[in-house]
């Protein structure tokens, strides 16, 4: 698979096509579910302005057009990022989503920065002792980590820390942020604190980030453990590993520079897909830890019957999945010298 511009363009077009499918799906949900689509789209408005709002929604959805034009109209609306105003937030949906994305991504990045190295390390340890009792234990641990309900783990971590008096709640101390004049610039608080050289806020945000990150990290840790074990064990049987061993290359070098290096592309690929799906885990854990972010939007969308916000989330999550997978493919190609660039 040569990694060429041609390939990237094809990949991009494919992603857009899939995204179109996702949008059409959400449109089908709106149209086919019982009730007036316009009322749903307007968010069950009440009061004197209700009729006007429903009429507005009807025009937005283009419900008087023939069906195929309706779908095209909806596609245009969603894919240009113009989903209109969120009922829950009374702001453009697009703005609400982008404002909250950074918080969730920060948590997700932290979780994967913990989970992937830790899991890979344990996986290599298991691969080196395949079939033994240590391997059995590590594999069971990997399965258990991947089988733990993330929301429940979050609650457990939370309960334990709280009982110990550790304030793992929210993103940053409001009082501290106000007292030190902290400003959110990028929305990644750790980064923002660094940019403003605000040490107290940095450490405070870090202390509040780690516990939920640990909960989100359970799944990637388990996954990477199992995956790196399988890939490294396979790689250890490769001819070039045998040759290197015969030439007297040290064990540590053989394991890391030879076997693990060979496992890396596969690891990147799978961890990438998992990263995309873990977005949901991060949203749930955010809710448990009282952090702002996309997780709260999920609840607000339900609470306010905010269909626009729901469609926005749907498309955002799908777009994130496609983007991350494309990136993972590219990264995988980049770290494999056999792929022509």
């Amino acid at each position, binding site marked *: 698979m040569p990694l060429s511009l041609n390939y990237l363009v094809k990949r991009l077009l494919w992603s857009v096509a899939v995204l179109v499918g996702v949008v059409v799906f959400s449109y089908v949900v709106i149209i086919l579910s019982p009730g007036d689509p316009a009322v749903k789209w307007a968010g069950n408005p009440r009061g004197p302005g209700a009729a006007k709002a429903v009429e507005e929604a009807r025009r937005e959805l283009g419900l008087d057009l023939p069906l195929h034009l309706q779908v095209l109209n909806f596609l245009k609306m969603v894919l240009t990022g113009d989903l209109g105003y969120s009922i829950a937030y009374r702001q453009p949906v697009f703005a609400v989503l982008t404002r909250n994305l950074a918080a969730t991504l920060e948590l997700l990045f932290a979780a994967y920065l913990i989970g992937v190295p830790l899991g890979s390390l344990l996986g290599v340890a298991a691969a080196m002792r395949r079939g033994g009792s240590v391997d059995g234990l590590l594999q069971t641990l990997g399965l258990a980590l991947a089988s733990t309900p993330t929301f429940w783990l979050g609650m457990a971590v939370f309960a334990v820390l709280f009982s110990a008096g550790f304030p793992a709640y929210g993103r940053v101390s409001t009082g501290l942020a106000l007292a030190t004049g902290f400003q959110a610039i990028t929305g990644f608080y750790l980064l923002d604190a660094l940019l403003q050289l605000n040490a107290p806020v940095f450490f405070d945000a870090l202390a509040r980030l780690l516990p939920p990150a640990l909960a989100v990290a359970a799944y990637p840790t388990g996954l990477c453990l199992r995956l790196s074990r399988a890939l490294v064990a396979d790689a250890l049987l490769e001819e070039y590993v045998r040759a290197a061993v015969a030439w007297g290359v040290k064990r540590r070098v053989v394991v890391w520079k*030879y076997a693990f290096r060979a496992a890396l592309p596969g690891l990147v690929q799978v961890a990438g897909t998992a990263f995309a799906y873990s977005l949901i885990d991060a949203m749930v854990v955010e809710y448990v830890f009282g952090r702002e972010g996309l997780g709260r939007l999920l609840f607000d969308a339900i609470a306010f019957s905010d269909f626009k916000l729901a469609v926005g989330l749907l498309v955002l999550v799908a777009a994130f999945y496609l983007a991350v997978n494309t990136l993972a493919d590219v990264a995988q190609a980049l770290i494999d010298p056999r792929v022509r660039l």
Partner: protein
Amino acid sequence: MVLAVEAKKLSVGYEESDELLWAVREVSFEVRESEAFCIVGESGSGKSTVASAIAGILPPHGVTDGELRVGGRVVVKGNERDYEGVRGRLVTYVPQSPGASLNPYLEIGDQFYYVLSSLYGLSRREAVEKARAYLRMAGLEPDAVLDRYPHELSGGMQQRAAIALALSTGARILVADEPTSSLDAHLRLQIVELLKRLRAEAGLTLIFITHDMLLAGALSERVAVMYAGRLVELGPTREVLRKPLHPYTSMLIESVPVLGVKRPLKAYTGEPPSPGEPSGGCPFYERCPFRLEVCASENPPAKGVGESRRVACWLF
């Protein structure tokens, strides 16, 4: 006289799905220092397993029995194996397929670096310096190779690079496991010439594994013939080639192609027994044109013939 390799009733097997399959059974032989020694046999005869045992790269599910010494060090004793300080220092290895034996994720220069830093703690610059010498010795232009990935090299270059890597370890015993099997005839000749030259120049002990009797004749001083995990004949190459004792050796010699035309094997139909089959008798019994009654029930022990030859056959 110092022995480079000494195998005493060496058996090697693999654990597969709860079963233990013996690939090599009770093999005994010696290789003298600075000698060119060849192990010949069809695929599945166990010759590669012997090579792996000497080079210290039996796979993790391998099982051993008997004893093996390399450079005077006991490396196999029963099912215990210890190659610490042997691999790369006393014995080195030229693998079978050049493409698969170089790490595809590392530049050639890095592969030299990891070998040399592991063995001698050289820095990257020192390692590259040394690599140049060995690459030249293997007939490669260093600058065209060092910062390349293996897949950017041709098959012949890959094999030369692998040989240079094997040599760079400085070990005095070189095990070459069919290093030419995947190369075309022209390259094969070049590689053989190279190995010959290197042995002459550096005074290495060469243990060469091949299925090609002709090649064995061209290269080695002594030859061991293996069949179905057993060593059936051992002796000076010239004598074995001129006057084979074991019927299987005769078969191998007769099937050597002349001018590239493979002669059909008239009498020797059939396949070697698979390693799992329990056999009380001689493993060659099924295919042997000279079989006796005893051959069916009892495996022939190795017998000395003359002062330098050994054969395992009831005919002797």
